[in-house]
């Protein structure tokens, strides 16, 4: 009988304590942001899809078409095409495509690049109607950027 009432008392008390916790939450401000209208600053270290970096001094990308990234990519999502123009000694990049649907964002390509030609973008809002929208042409992208 004693246990019966003590359980009733302890139980009621614990429930009231729980109600107190949620009541305090009711009075405290919301912790979420109203996403499409409000955005939080994204960390500069964020890893989005990879980009060809524009070299400030030359105004061009730094890729030498050495194929290191293509060979090291665990997901085989990078295709680099380089050709030797007539009379030149070095290969020049003619196409750099990234199949982002297969990329696992490991960052190995960025690390193994001998000329630091690659970097991560801060693009995180990704939505499209077709897979092809994620077949990025990085060379075209870098040439378009100012």
């Amino acid at each position: 009988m004693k246990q019966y009432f003590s359980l009733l008392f302890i139980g009621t008390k614990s429930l009231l304590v729980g109600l107190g916790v949620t009541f305090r939450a009711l009075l405290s401000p919301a912790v979420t942001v109203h996403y499409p209208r409000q955005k939080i600053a994204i960390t500069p270290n964020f890893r989005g899809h990879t980009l060809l970096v524009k070299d400030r001094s030359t105004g061009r990308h730094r890729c030498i078409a050495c194929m290191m990234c293509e060979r090291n990519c665990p997901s085989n999502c990078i295709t680099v095409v380089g050709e030797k123009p007539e009379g030149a000694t070095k290969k020049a990049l003619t196409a750099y495509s990234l199949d982002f649907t297969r990329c696992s964002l490991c960052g190995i390509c960025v690390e193994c690049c001998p000329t630091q030609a690659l970097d991560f973008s801060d693009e995180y809002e990704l939505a499209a109607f077709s897979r092809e929208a994620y077949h990025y042409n990085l060379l075209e992208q870098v040439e378009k950027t100012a």
Partner: protein
Amino acid sequence: MGTTILLPPELLRMVFTAVVVIALVFLNSLILGYVERKLAGRFQLRPGPMEVGPHGILQLMADAVKLLGKQFIIPQAANSPLFRLAPLLAFVPVGASFIVVPLSQKLQVRDLDVGLVFIVAVMALNMVATLIAGWASNNKYSLFGAMRSVAQSVAYEIPLLLSLVAVVLMTHTFNMQEIVLSQDNIWHVVQQPVAFLIYFIAGMAETHRAPFDLPEAESELTAGFHTEFSGIRFSFFFLAEYTNMFFVGSIAVVLFLGGWHGPQLPFMDYSAAVWFLLKVYSLLLVMIWVRWTFPRVRFDQLLNFCWKYLTPIALVNLLVTAVVVKL
């Protein structure tokens, strides 16, 4: 005046009442649905619906339109007539209960002498709808929900009625208006705090609100008895739930919290409805608060709690009341 002339106004009155009642049912569900989602958001440190209309007040309208546009799906193995009947059956008692709710001294459809008995009886019909819904779906999860619902309702009806009878013993009437009038000086909650608490807990169980939401128990039974219902049929259950909440609140206010009594307002005969609604919605806010705080109880614990705690305490309370009233 002959009877032939009297009939049309009576008919008009019926139609008018029906329209108002159905409008009230929808309006109440819209308000409660919005308030519940908004409060749930605030309890969880998020803003709740924000997109449709200022602060999301039109969210429920948008949801209603969405539900109207959905396809009715009747599972092949379901018992089709019963499956179609169940949502209506959930909805009908809800409209009927409105007849005796005294919003104010004059705002009441019918002042029945057995008003209290009527509303409790009609509300209990909801259980039948749940049972039929679960049975007709021919889905094991739905059936679990239905069975739980019946057991739960049958068990909780007892402490619920016992706590109401305690008040009736004091007022000597089942008439809702007279019960309210008897609280002119002092609300019954002061004289009957235990009965009020028991009624409130049992009422939550009756309306299947968390922590007693076993017939729906999302994490166990996916959606319980309304798993197979879609579109407007689903929304009937939704309407029924919120309207039932309103009635549970109404009965509590009429019996324990002084009904429409409150500070004097102009046109008190009608405007007292403000006090009535205010009290009802405050009670419903507490129900929402409880729902968003606690885990769900288990089925046997639910029944144990009813038979071991609520029913004996309600009986003792009734006994004490009877003795005190007799003295």
